[in-house]
Structures are given as C-alpha cells and as structure tokens.
C-alpha cells in the first residue's frame, strides 16, 4: 500500500522520445543516457551545487546492492524515477528522493557464465516506455518502465562461446545499439542495432572481417576467425552526421601477436557507422597489431571547436595506450596525437597518427616491462567535457606492467589470452585527474591521486568536477583550478562514473562507491 501511495505522488511518467534524448540539455534535472548526452560529455548543466557550497554536500540516501561484484552502473533519471543496473544483470527502479525501491527485475543466469572480468553491468537505456538492459548471458531485454515487466528478450549471441554483455545500451531514434564483450574468448566482435519496439535485429556491423573481405588481409592466415574486437563501452552519436561513434577492443589473443601478424582490423579502432544502415563511414585504428590488450573502448567525446584556426567537428579520445587523440569526426582525419601519461612503447605517432613502435616492447615468455599497464592510462570509465571551462577531464593512471607471451590455442568458451601480465615489483603507481585543453592536449591542471584510479568524472555548471579515488573517496574539485573542495569516504574501491540530477527542485549527485550507490545533496 505504501508503495502505491508513493507511486501516486510521483509526477506523471511521460514517454521518453528521441526528441527528448536529442535535447537532453533542455531538461537538466533528468539524466537520460549513459553519458548524459549523445556527445559523451558527462556534463550536468545543474548549478545549485557549486564551488561555493559543495563543502556542505552530504548523503541524502544510500542504496546497498546485494551483489559483491563490482557495482559499475551509471544511473538514469527520468521524471522522479532512477533506473540502475546491478551485477550480474539486474535492474532496479528507485524513487529519486527517498531511495526506496519501486520495482526490481531479477535475471536468472546459468551457473557457468563466461565473462572475463566480473559479472558486471554499466547501466540501462530508456526510450518510449521501455528500459533496456544487456545481460552477461548475452541477451538484450526490454522492460516496462513502470513495472519492470519483461516486454521482450532477445538472444544477441551465445554465452557458451564467451559472448557477454556488460555495456549500457544506447537508445537512438528507433533503435537500441548494443555492443558485445568477449575479447578474451576469441569471439568475432560486432555492434548491433535492434528495433526498439520489437527487438528485431535492424543491422549488425562485424568488427572482424569474414573470409575474402579486404580487411581479412590484415590478419595472418585465418586468424581473423578469433579476432575479438569487442564493443563493450557505450559510444556517442551526432545527429548532424547521423553517425554513431564506437570504440572497439583488443585483437585476440591478447598478448600473442605471432599468430595474427598484420594490423588486425577493426580491433582497437574508433568506427563511425551510419545509424540507419550500420554501414562503415570511416575508421581510425589507434593501436595496429596490439599486443598489450589496449582496447580502444573508451568513451568518445564530441565537440565543435576551432582547431588551428578553423571551426571543426572534433572527436576527442584519451586512449588506453597512453596517447591522446583528436580526430575530425566527419572524415576520420587524424588531427592531433600525443602522450598524456607515461608510455614506453612508441617513439611517437607519424603524420597519419600511426604509432612508431619502439623495439623490445612485445611480450616475451620471460616478461617485458612496458608502460602503460594492461589497465592502460585510461579505461572504460568516462571522461568529461565542460562547455563552461572548455576543458576535457580525464582520470589518468600512471602505471606499467610486465607482459608475458604464451600459447594461443583456441577452445570455444575458454579464455584465449596468449600470455598474461603482472604488476611491476616495487613500482610506485599513481594517478591523477587532469584537465586538458582539448584542441592541444596541454594540461591545464592536475590533481594527484595516491593510487591509479578506476572511475570516471562528471563536470557540472557549478564549476565542479566530481570523481573518486580507488581508495573509496568520492571527491569534488574546482573545475577551473583543480583545487579539492569536498571529499567523502564511501568504504569501498570505486569502479563507476558520477552523474547528477534534480528532484523536487533539489540537485543531487550520485555515484556507486564500493557496493553501494551514494546520493548526495546539500545539507538542508
């Protein structure tokens, strides 16, 4: 009964149309897509919480997950309701003011789910009156946004062969875009679009070629058959070009490149696909013939800015391989690339953006020390772009690894790594949240962290950057100067991204810390 009363007191649940998603900045109180807008900005125009008052930020409520898996979700907020995913593939709807549960979707999974790096999920998508979630057993499920009831459930791929879904889907126009994970299982990677209403497959773009296709020549022999190039991090969309921008993952096997000589297209690429057809418009490969597991599965950031005197449509990409890239997002032209963290594998990039590799950096049976580490200088967690400060904020890792070369014999459903890695004994790893000038890659400021971070950042119109340390603290920095203004120890290592919303006229900031979702507001 109490729940019914609560539901009645919520504002009328309106349909989430594509128009609303396109104009997300017009309703800053909601958070409608994974990155807050289609451009991957993770910026909140809300400014009730500012650099002047953030010191008074305090928990409004906490939601504890029952799962001890990593809690990686970015909540969506629509008109008073928050939608979160929980490990392994659950969805929960919460009241944004009280944190009380409105409905739950609990997925039953097979005992032997194959997923490399934890049974996790990074969030849901919403369109119309449906909430979409990908599952670790590689299904895409549409739920009724009012009740959590399953409206459709389609098999994207077979989990028995190591396909899984951890990525938050992206709802665009009439389609649900969903990527696949399984880069450590020798899958053939792809990116899918499904009809939002029916769940019917609209198109599939294979990130690894089939026999006879020109790209197959970038793989020795038939090695493309185990090529991986998974698509496990949510991309961006530009309505003007009607292109979808998505990063692709490592080639398989990860550390043994001998069995797959060649550039290995389209692994470690940014691919630009026509939204309506799924056809490739252009691609840019960051790490040809990757042997360090440096997936290009970071969130692309789209901005329009003057570049060397000319107004251009840009795509910003702080890559896991420790280079920062600026591309023209209409043509895919390489405009700028430079290291933004310690790296020892490339002398630099040539005029086309191709890395000039240093000798002696490939994995060996005895072990080879290379910076950055397997986790990279950046990873799946989100950067943020503020249109106010015009800075790109990136949580950066400064650490190396010892890389091992090993066998690579494919067996369906088993990990296909071809080696391994470990941390460098005695290395003093560290990290920083850095503010970059996006068109030059210059560092505007840096805030040092004791441990390399594994969580993203949010910037807000209150001149703030929110982020977290791997040691459990959520922090707020001055977006212009990088000065620490607030922190809170949440009690568990942080593997997620912050977001912000407004409810009943009050601004909240939310982030999972450890196994709980913390929602902060200004002390009343």
């Amino acid at each position, binding site marked *: 009964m109490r729940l019914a009363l609560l539901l009645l007191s919520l504002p009328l649940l309106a349909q989430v149309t594509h128009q609303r998603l396109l104009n997300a900045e017009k309703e800053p109180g909601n958070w409608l897509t994974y990155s807050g807008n289609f451009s991957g900005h993770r910026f909140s125009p809300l400014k009730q919480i500012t650099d002047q008052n953030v010191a008074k930020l305090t928990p409004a409520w906490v939601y504890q997950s029952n799962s001890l898996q990593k809690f990686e979700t970015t909540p969506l907020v629509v008109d008073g309701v928050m939608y979160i995913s929980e490990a392994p593939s659950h969805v929960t709807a919460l009241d944004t003011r009280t944190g009380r549960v409105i409905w739950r979707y609990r997925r039953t999974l097979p005992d*032997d789910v*194959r997923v*490399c*790096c*934890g049974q996790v999920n990074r969030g849901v998508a919403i369109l119309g009156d449906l909430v979409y979630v990908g599952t670790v057993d590689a299904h895409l499920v549409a739920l009724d946004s009012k009740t959590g009831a399953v409206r459709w459930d389609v098999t994207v791929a077979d989990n028995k062969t190591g396909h899984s879904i951890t990525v938050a889907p992206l709802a665009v126009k009439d389609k649900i875009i969903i990527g696949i994970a399984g880069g*450590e299982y020798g899958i053939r990677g792809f990116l899918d679009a499904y009809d939002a209403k029916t769940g019917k497959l609209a198109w599939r773009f294979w990130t690894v070629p089939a026999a006879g296709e020109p790209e197959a020549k970038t793989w020795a022999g038939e090695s493309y058959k185990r090529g991986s190039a998974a698509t496990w991090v949510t991309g961006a969309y530009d309505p003007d070009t009607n292109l979808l921008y998505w990063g692709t993952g490592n080639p398989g096997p990860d550390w043994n490149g001998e069995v797959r000589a060649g550039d290995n297209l389209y692994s470690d690429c940014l691919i630009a696909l026509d939204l309506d057809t799924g056809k490739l418009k252009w691609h840019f490969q960051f790490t040809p013939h990757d042997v360090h597991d440096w997936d290009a599965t970071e969130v692309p950031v789209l901005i329009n800015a003057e570049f060397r005197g000319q107004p251009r449509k840009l795509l910003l990409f702080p890559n896991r391989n420790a280079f920062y890239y600026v591309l023209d997002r209409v043509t895919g032209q390489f405009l700028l690339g430079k290291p933004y963290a310690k790296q020892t594998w490339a002398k630099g990039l040539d005029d086309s953006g191709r890395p000039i590799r240093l000798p002696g950096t490939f994995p*060996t*049976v*005895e*072990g080879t020390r290379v910076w950055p580490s*397997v*986790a990279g200088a950046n990873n799946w967690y989100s950067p943020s772009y503020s249109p106010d400060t015009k800075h790109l904020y990136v949580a950066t890792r400064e*650490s190396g690894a010892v890389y*091992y070369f*090993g*066998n*690579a*014999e494919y*067996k369906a*459903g*088993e*990990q*296909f*790594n*071809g*080696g*391994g*890695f*470990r*941390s460098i*004994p*005695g290395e003093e*790893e560290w990290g920083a949240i850095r503010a970059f000038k996006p068109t030059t890659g210059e560092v505007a400021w840096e805030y*040092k*962290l*004791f*441990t*390399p971070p*594994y969580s993203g950042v949010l910037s807000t119109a209150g001149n703030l950057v929110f982020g977290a*340390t*791997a*040691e*459990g*603290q959520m922090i707020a920095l001055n977006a212009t100067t990088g000065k620490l203004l607030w*922190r809170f120890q949440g009690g568990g*290592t942080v593997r997620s991204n912050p977001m912000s919303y407004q409810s009943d006229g009050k601004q909240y900031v939310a982030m999972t810390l450890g196994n709980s979702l913390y929602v902060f507001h200004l002390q009343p």
Partner: protein
Amino acid sequence: MFWLAPFLLFQLQQPLDIPDKNPHTTAADIEQGKRLYMGRCAGCHGPSGDGGKGANLAVPTLPRAAADRSLYRIIRYGIPDTEMPGSLMDAKELWQTAAFVHSLGQVPSAPITGNAQAGAQVFKSKGACLNCHALGNEGGRIGPSLSGIGARRGAAHLKAKIVNPAADVPDQFRLVQLTTKAGKTMRGIRLNEDTYSIQLRDFSGNPQSFWKADITQLTEEKKTNMPAYQGKLTDTELNDLVAFLANEKGAQ
C-alpha cells in the same frame, strides 16, 4: 588498497573440468614448463625451486598440492590471502609449468643441517625474535608473523633474510617517518595509506592515524627495522634458528 593491483582486470573463472592427472609430462613439456617457470615463478620461488620469497617447491610432496589437480589449481588461481597470485596461462602451459614444478622435487635440495630444538631457544632468547614477530598467539606485530613461515619460505631465503634483512623488505612492512604540523615526529610500520591519510603502527605496537593535511613531512625509509644477525649469532646458532623456522609449518 595499494597491495591489490595485479588482478584488477581479470577475474579467473572456476574451471570447467580439470583432469586428475597431468596430461603434459613429456621432456619437451617439462622444458617448456621451465621457460614459463623462469619467467613467472622463479622471481619468488628461486630458479631451482628451493624457495625464496615463495615456498620451497623442491620437495617430493608439496604440502598444498599433493595431487596434480591441486597444483594446477594453485598455479591457475593463486592462494587467497597470500602473495601467490593466479595466472592467465592456458591449460597446456599450466600443466607444463606444473610438470616442471613437480620435477623440482625429484632433485635433492640443500639439506637443513641445524638442530630445530636448539633453534627454538635461539628464537626465544638470544635472537629475541618475538619482540617484533608473532608465532601463534605469542609475540609482537611490528614485523610479519612467522606462523607457518617454513611452509612459505625456503631455508636459504630464511638464512639470507636473517643475515641481511635489508635485501628484501616486504611492501606491507615499510618503515615510514613523519612530522606533524604540531612538530611531533613519529616512525613506524605503514599499515595503510590513501590520498588523504596514512595509518601506521608505532614501535610500542600502537596503531596511529594521521591526515596528510596535518603532516609537514612524510618519508618512506627504504630499509627495515629488523637488525642484521650477521656476526651476532654463531654459525651453529644461525643454522639451528633456520632449522627451527624451516620446520615451523603452522597449525595444520
């Protein structure tokens, strides 16, 4: 969180089916296993497997891995709550490594010459080891616990450590020195540290915690608080102490 880095990304899945017997034990397998071992294992277990920072593997029967299957599992998944990590090697490589590890036990390792009973006396009296180290429920917490040390460390490593402790200082027992804004100076063993604070144990055994904002100077001393016993113990006493520690297998 500083000690949790290596397996940040990959979580090792439970095996689907592991055979009882090692299927890769030819001379060529052992040879490949040796290459893998030298790259990944020898750093801690020593090139001939007689231990170091890691356990002595040059024994006929491994205490934690009497069966092939259990050895495979340990190499694959590591041993929880120890420094032994898991590995991403594939099944064949794991078996080849296991085959080489097994072969180490076929070679006699350097015999332990000391008298363990006499060593127990050295441990308690002249060595005064319990001042800093725990054994069972006795002793201090300034240094690492020595309960079961013989199962984790080889005799040669134990001897080297007693003679010259500075050669290998464990990460979790780093000496730090700090000065607070109020002018207080303190030395101790680092227990934990993050961006904003540090926790340490002082030499009276008390835990202490400081905000970094209240500290004017924080230095990590790349040395150990353990005294070097070179010249302080006779050769016999040293060998007896090593024998005592090597026999200390902990509660089974």
